[in-house]
């Protein structure tokens, strides 16, 4: 029987997380478009003002074109991630690659890392087996968890993320300076914390939190592969 209260909390939290993700992402896209716009405008200016009559100007033009191409490629990669993210919602349970999901997640979180000057150490074990679970829900959990850590972390902090195989499980490990996203609001019963716990329970994913000797906080998600 569905737990309506927790389902509602989860849905609200998912919507809020989607809003944050889209806000950050659209801002990034606008940045690329702004640079494309200025670069194309500069080429127009140079043409209009007749300043392209020597080899130096031609080289300048080539440089501007390469900036446009690079920014289009970056915007295209962002669009691909967004499309892949949207399609994960098509079928709730499906086979997916955990590392691919984590890489996509980091593209969504990139702007939030940048705003706080947070550096990220990523160590993903290659050739992990596919997981059959709810990729969209897992993505929500990881996004919300890391987003909350980034919001609470001091500027210039560091987050480490790794994936590894252990027996028949895949472990996702997040390490951050003395922060747990589940208690960051000073309240382990906050709506996001409740939504994360409920979502993990729904997916059959265990969560373990511990404080390391150097005072860093370690969170391990254990995802069964079978």
């Amino acid at each position: 029987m569905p737990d309506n209260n927790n389902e509602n909390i989860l849905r609200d939290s998912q919507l809020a997380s989607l809003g944050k993700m889209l806000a950050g992402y659209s801002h990034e896209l606008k940045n690329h478009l702004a640079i494309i716009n200025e670069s194309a405008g500069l080429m127009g200016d140079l043409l209009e003002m007749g300043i392209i009559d020597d080899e130096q100007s031609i080289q300048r033009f080539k440089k501007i074109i390469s900036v446009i191409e690079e920014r289009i490629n970056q915007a295209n990669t962002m669009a691909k991630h967004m499309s892949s993210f949207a399609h994960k919602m098509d079928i709730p349970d499906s086979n997916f690659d955990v590392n691919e999901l984590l890489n996509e997640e980091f593209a969504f979180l990139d702007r939030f890392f940048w705003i706080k000057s947070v550096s990220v150490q990523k160590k993903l074990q290659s050739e992990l087996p596919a997981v059959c679970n709810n990729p969209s829900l897992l993505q929500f959990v990881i996004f919300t968890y890391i987003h909350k850590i980034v919001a609470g972390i001091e500027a210039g902090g560091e987050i480490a993320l790794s994936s590894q195989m252990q027996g028949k499980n895949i472990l996702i490990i997040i390490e951050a300076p003395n922060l747990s996203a589940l208690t960051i609001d000073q309240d382990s019963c906050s709506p996001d914390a409740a939504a994360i716990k409920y979502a993990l329970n729904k997916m059959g994913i265990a969560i373990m939190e511990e404080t390391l000797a150097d005072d860093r906080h370690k969170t391990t998600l254990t995802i069964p592969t079978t």
Partner: protein
Amino acid sequence: MENIKLLIVDDEEEFAATLAERLELRGFSSKSASCGNNALEVLASNFSPDVVLLDLKMPDISGFEVLIEIKEKYPSIEVIMLTGHGAATGGKDSKERGAFDYIMKPVDINELAGKIKAAYLKNA
């Protein structure tokens, strides 16, 4: 109109450099700063711009904080905010905090040039 000096503050260095080049082609002279702290350092040095073009969202200190400091220390310098936000709220808020005006990214270069001239003429 005499040569108008600009300080362009944006962490997207390619954006700032290209915008600077386009404005220079229109007769303005400019310097760029890649973050809020860098902008304040430039202002504390010998460079005294007529108008500052200031990005709202930057990684070290926000455009709002830089705006407040500029208006406190250099009240004669006019500031035009550059914002990539979908909503114009940030721009409107910054006008309340002393900015001359704001413009959304991607910018219309002629609209921006017009705003810069209007900002300059305010104190001329």
